[in-house]
């Protein structure tokens, strides 16, 4: 008959052994709690940055998926455009909003200055569904329709041009026939966006107005915002079939730098977690080895009276996992509380100029995903298990006779 593994008594022994050195183990527990809580908080801040990054990229006229004419990305001109039926509605699942635009490079002139900009002809109602225009503060009027003949410019651009609401400016660009076109418009309003670079780049007018200027009824892009970011590849494939002659792309294909940063955040979270846990594992191993060495005689006696080496190993691992599990659960609890305490966000407005190139806004709101909690839980327990291997191995190597002579 083989010896059974008395899980209950091992658990009891582990609990009492941990309690026996409660001060030391309390310090270890505290270290685990702090490390896990910090990891969770850092994760949620990074996740918040990631969410902000995605929102920013999608809102900055990219959408989750976009249809462009072939070659437009290299040469964004009205020659690289396509026709969209007047009654077009996207036929794909999970659409949160959509917009068709005419977007070409151009020049804006005021009495005082001239700037190179992106001229964007829009349907204002569509933009309010999917782009950053929904969130901007406008001084003066917002555009009213695709036929609105006025322009909406950024406040920063207005400052550069030394113009203001109600004043006239001139837009100049290349028409569909390759000849320069220009026309005068009145400034309907100035907008303040989260980033001054947006204000300096985009000049909006009615879509049909810009089409008139360019001499083409075509659009240069169809941008679609989805309910779920994870559905973007499916949506792209559907759109590619529907617009076979055009190019459908996801936001990460259109904005490789943002996509790279997005992926970097995932890696950063894992690196941060690994550093914290590796540091913790050293402490854990040290404490457990000390505990094993202190109990060498006792472990030798257990072996002498017939405890199998495997059972000794299980006991040491169980002891480790008990304290790690408790620490991780408490750490997660503290981490969740810390994240909740920051639910209003962290004000980064004093660094706005520096952080906007990282797709970060002036308010960083932590995001706590159940997946991240489970990952912290799972990986922490895994680290705990790995950290217990060496002490457990030492405990198993205890020769009963040698141990009891000590």
């Amino acid at each position: 008959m083989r010896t059974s593994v008395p899980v209950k008594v091992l658990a009891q022994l582990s609990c009492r052994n941990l309690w026996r050195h409660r001060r030391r183990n309390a310090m270890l527990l505290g270290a685990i709690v702090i490390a896990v809580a910090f990891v969770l908080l850092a994760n949620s801040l990074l996740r918040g940055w990631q969410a902000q990054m995605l929102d920013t990229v999608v809102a900055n006229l990219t959408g989750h998926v976009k249809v462009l004419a072939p070659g437009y990305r290299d040469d964004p001109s009205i020659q690289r455009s396509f026709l969209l039926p007047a009654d077009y509605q996207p036929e794909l699942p999970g659409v949160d909003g959509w917009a068709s635009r005419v977007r070409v490079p151009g020049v804006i002139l005021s009495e005082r200055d001239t700037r190179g900009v992106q001229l964007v002809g829009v349907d204002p109602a569509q933009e309010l569904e999917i782009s950053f225009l929904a969130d901007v503060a406008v001084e003066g009027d917002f555009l009213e329709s695709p036929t609105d003949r006025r322009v909406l410019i950024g406040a920063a651009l207005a400052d550069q041009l030394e113009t203001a609401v109600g004043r006239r400016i001139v837009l100049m660009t290349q028409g569909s026939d390759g000849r320069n076109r220009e026309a005068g418009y009145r400034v309907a309003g100035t907008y303040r966006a989260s980033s001054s670079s947006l204000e300096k780049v985009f000049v909006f007018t009615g879509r049909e107005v810009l089409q008139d200027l360019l001499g083409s009824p075509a659009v240069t892009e169809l941008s679609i915002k989805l309910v779920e970011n994870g559905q973007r590849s499916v949506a792209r494939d559907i759109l590619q079939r529907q617009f076979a002659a055009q190019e459908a792309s996801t936001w990460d294909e259109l904005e490789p730098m943002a996509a790279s940063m997005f992926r970097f955040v995932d890696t950063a979270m894992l690196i941060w977690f690994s550093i914290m846990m590796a540091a913790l594992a050293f402490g854990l191993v040290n404490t457990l080895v000390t505990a094993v060495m202190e109990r060498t005689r006792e472990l030798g006696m257990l072996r002498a009276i017939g405890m199998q080496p495997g059972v000794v190993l299980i006991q040491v691992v169980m002891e480790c996992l008990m304290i790690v599990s408790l620490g991780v659960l408490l750490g997660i609890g503290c981490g969740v509380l810390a994240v909740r305490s920051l639910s209003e966000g962290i004000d980064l407005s004093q660094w706005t100029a520096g952080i906007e190139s990282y797709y970060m806004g002036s308010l960083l709101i932590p995001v706590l995903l159940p997946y991240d909690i489970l990952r912290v839980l799972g990986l922490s327990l895994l680290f705990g298990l790995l950290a217990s291997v060496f002490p457990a191995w030492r405990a198993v190597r205890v020769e009963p006779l040698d141990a009891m002579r000590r």
Partner: protein
Amino acid sequence: MDAHDYVVQCHGLERTYHDDGVPVHALAGVDFEVEKGDFVSLAGPSGSGKSTLLNCIGGLDRATAGTVTVGGVDLASLSSAELAELRLRRVGFVFQSYNLIPVLSARENVEFIMQLQGVHADQRRRDALAMLDSLGIGELADRRPGELSGGQQQRVAVARAIVSKPVLLLADEPSANLDSHTTAELLQLLADINRERGMTIITATHDPAVMAFARRRIGLQDGRIVSDLRDEGAGG
């Protein structure tokens, strides 16, 4: 006498240690048998090999040469896990310094062996309390070792060693940390266990009081048996 009547058989038993490369012959050819139900004391001065012999019989140490069989099983043929199993089920140990588990109560210490054996909780508790009662320390069942005197701890250790009814009880210097009065009580206890339960007992000791309680006294010197006397009237 038939080989089946022997609990322990040692033939040509040798155990050599190396101390800084110098061989030390702790056992230098020991031959003896122990009959079922016997009470044997291994006596001799320090370094005579009595504890080494006891450890070889208990499977805690391995012989360099020769054979040890316990209950007909050749210990040399067993793996360390099988030796642990043999110690758990067939051999009870009483150590010089009690070696109780400090975080468990007296009852839990006694139950521990049975837990390793997979005995059901109710039976375990019943047997442990009955054993502590029979050794006169039933009222101390819930106390931890740190709350017990040396003699009481040694009684708990004896209870733990015999609760699962091993065929052989090995006691290494069981009286070393006890005063003479407690030693006398312990020896009487061992003699009672030997007589009433028919349990084979081997002690290693240099305490004349312990030797006097054994029916058979094997003298060791320099790793060899130098005397083997029987006193059927011994045993309290």
